[in-house]
């Protein structure tokens, strides 16, 4: 912590702004794992497969982008599944579809994203007003979202016929689907928010030292709500993207994305305790998880084992990140 002589500050300066050593782990792991699979399986290294990996990472990337902000604050968000379901149904009922005469196009998408935003708001309000831990608040909101989705579903699957929305999953630009480019845009947007907006910086700061913010006269509660709302908007967009992929609004559109997104963010180097990591870290984490899933199928690992291997790798990734920093008497929750 402290320095005893005047020579010490000099070396500190050098590592000041650049990426620190510990941030390098996940990208290196990504390259190594990619290399291993590429060596093992010729199909894996084909361009078509790389395309497939990147395309199928799109939705998870957007969802993870959202969850990263919540994790940066040191909170947790399990509402992705419900919010995505609700937004998937919303968008599929508002754009051209087989259930009703609506054809709001882009505004339908916007409405779905805003709905996600509203659900996020709800989580945030439950956290700051009712003082319910985010774990439970978001779990509750997820159930509410699924309920709302089921209400809208009303027994008949809405299939979308909106060409533009369907095109997201089908049309390609530079070899990658529009969805991938949307995900890239989201990551960029997320990074900009994280780097250049008060919201993003405060989310980061809340994870670092919430009490200091309060002491400096910052009202943290509106920012907490806003962060959940932002995350909700990302989930909403995620739901829209799933709808575009499936061509229909499914209540289960977000199944499993909650834990996958947390896993991806953590593998990418975001700490669950908050204050470290970020959108770019998470993007790497998402790619890592997708490469792993895809690679295991390509090299012929039984589907039963895939979940297990992923579990081992998540634990290993985190272990590798924390072992160098182990201290005695360290608090690990």
């Amino acid at each position, binding site marked *: *912590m402290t*320095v005893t002589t005047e020579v010490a500050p000099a070396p*500190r300066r050098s590592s*000041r*702004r650049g990426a620190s050593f510990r941030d390098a782990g996940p990208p290196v792991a990504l390259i190594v794992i990619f290399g291993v699979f590429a060596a093992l399986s010729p199909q894996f290294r084909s361009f078509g497969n790389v395309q497939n990996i990147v395309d199928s990472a799109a939705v998870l990337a957007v969802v993870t982008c959202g969850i990263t902000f919540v994790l940066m604050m040191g909170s947790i968000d399990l509402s992705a599944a419900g919010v995505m379901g609700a937004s998937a149904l919303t968008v599929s009922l508002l754009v051209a579809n087989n259930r009703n005469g609506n054809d709001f196009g882009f505004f339908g998408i916007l409405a779905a994203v805003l709905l996600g935003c509203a659900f996020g708001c709800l989580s945030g309000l439950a956290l700051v007003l009712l003082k319910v831990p985010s774990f439970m608040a978001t779990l509750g909101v997820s159930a509410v979202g699924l309920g709302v989705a089921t209400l809208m579903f009303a027994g008949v699957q809405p299939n979308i016929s909106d060409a533009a929305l369907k095109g997201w999953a089908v049309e390609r630009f530079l070899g990658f689907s529009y969805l991938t480019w949307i995900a890239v845009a989201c990551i960029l947007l997320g990074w900009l928010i994280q780097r*250049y907006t008060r919201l993003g910086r405060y989310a980061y700061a809340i994870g670092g030292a919430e009490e200091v913010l309060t*002491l400096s*006269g910052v009202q943290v509660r509106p920012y907490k709500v806003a962060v959940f709302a932002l995350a909700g908007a990302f989930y909403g967009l995620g739901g829209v993207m799933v709808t575009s992929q499936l061509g229909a609004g499914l209540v289960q559109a977000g199944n499993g994305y909650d834990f996958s997104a947390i896993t991806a963010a953590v593998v990418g180097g975001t700490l669950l305790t908050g204050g*470290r990591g970020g959108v770019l870290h998470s993007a790497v984490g998402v790619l890592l998880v997708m490469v792993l899933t895809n690679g295991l199928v390509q090299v012929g690992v039984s589907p039963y084992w895939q979940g297990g291997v992923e579990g081992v790798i998540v634990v290993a990734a985190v272990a590798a990140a924390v072992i160098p920093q182990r201290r005695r008497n360290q608090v690990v929750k």
Partner: protein
Amino acid sequence: MNALEVRGLVKHYPGVKALDGVDLVVRPNEVLGLAGENGAGKSTLLKALVGLVSPDQGQIFVRGQAVKLRNVVDAANHGIGMVFQEQSLVPNLTAAENIVLGSEGAGVRRGIYRWNEMRRLAQEQLDKIGSPIDPLARTDTLTFAERQMVEIAKVLRIEQRSQHPPVIILDEPTSVLESKEIETLFAQIRRLREFASVVFVSHRLDEVLDVCDRVTVLRSGQSVGEVATAGAVPRELHRMMIGSTGSDDHYHENAATPVTADQPRLSVRGLSGKSFHDVDLDVAAGEILAIVGVHGSGREDVCRALFGAEPTTAGEIRMDGTKVDLPSTRAACAAGIGYVPAERKIEGMVGSMSVADNMTLAKQKPRLTGPFVAPKKQAALVDSWIKRLSIRTPRRDTAIGRLSGGNQQKVVLARWLIGGDVKLLLLDHPTRGLDIGARSEVYRLMRELASSGVATVLLADSLEEAIGMADRILVMNDGRVAAEVACPSGGKPSPLDLVKEMV
């Protein structure tokens, strides 16, 4: 008109009257020293001045107007800002962000950061104190002293909030600085005086006399005197601080017993770890050994290593001649070693648990019958220790967090005593944050323990304390033992002798 004036401030805490009618006057463009022992009420007074504590009685006037300060922001709007003792910076933000935190102004437009503007604003503040820190450096990569500069720069931002010259409060800013850094700080303070009023808080009299124009002395929640520093005598001030009663035998020296052991109780040879190297030390039964050194000298880590809480790379530790392995704190406990951590609130006690639970946490045996807790046995045991150490607590099952600092510390100490088998006590700043009465009691307890044959390693809060309590003093510097100074009753060294070795 006075920049700031306090009249008859009173604040009660459960069991303690922290402020008992304090008066204080801060004039424009002066550096006012606020001196007092730990526990004299300085912290509470300062918290009241920045709106963190609402006083029970009394009034605060800013430039002649009575104000009620509701929170830090409110205080800042009135032009009062404080550099906190425990640093209040967000570690994972840049220095610039920390400086403007909460009042970004032009640095943020419609929620969007303008990093150049932000940097400029921060640089402006840093320039005021002439600091060369890069505003865009992440705060946790800065040194402690640099961070303190950032804090001062941050407080100076309140100038932008009020049209008047600010009042800057520095709470014990020097406690962990080295002499060189202290000099820089003092230069800053003198510079601040040009456009602001400064309240400088310290319990080191030499510093107070050095940098301040005037000194107000607090003792047990009251202002006991005001002295102009020009021509003031430290001894006189010191007498005011500790009061006439405690000055003679504050450290209970007449209770000290001469050490008469042929074999050391604790013998350490060549102990090395991450922040200390090749440390040799011996402590005899009944001896109090103080280790002194500046922040970063490695003495805290040596202490923790002796308790198995810090890994060592080399060296051996012997207790009563037998080699002991200390891979964990548990092993240390089993070897008869006790440890009182410096961070009482975080590491010393479990705030939400009861006095009884805290007291019996380390040594379970005395309250057990077989493997089971015997409630009656525990009650009798805890009550007897509450009485013996005169711990002021409503009940034994009151949460320890509700007690005053001194009583908390006594419970933490009692934790090691109830087993009756402690051979070596490691005391890391045992009197930090205690009022004078409580300190005296802790000293008395240490003497008692020493005379009953417990060996003690003391990391004292101040040099005076080390000199007052210790039989022998080790001076550590840069992770190594620099000198050993004998410190027998009647032949105490002066603080200056020690400081020479420390730097």
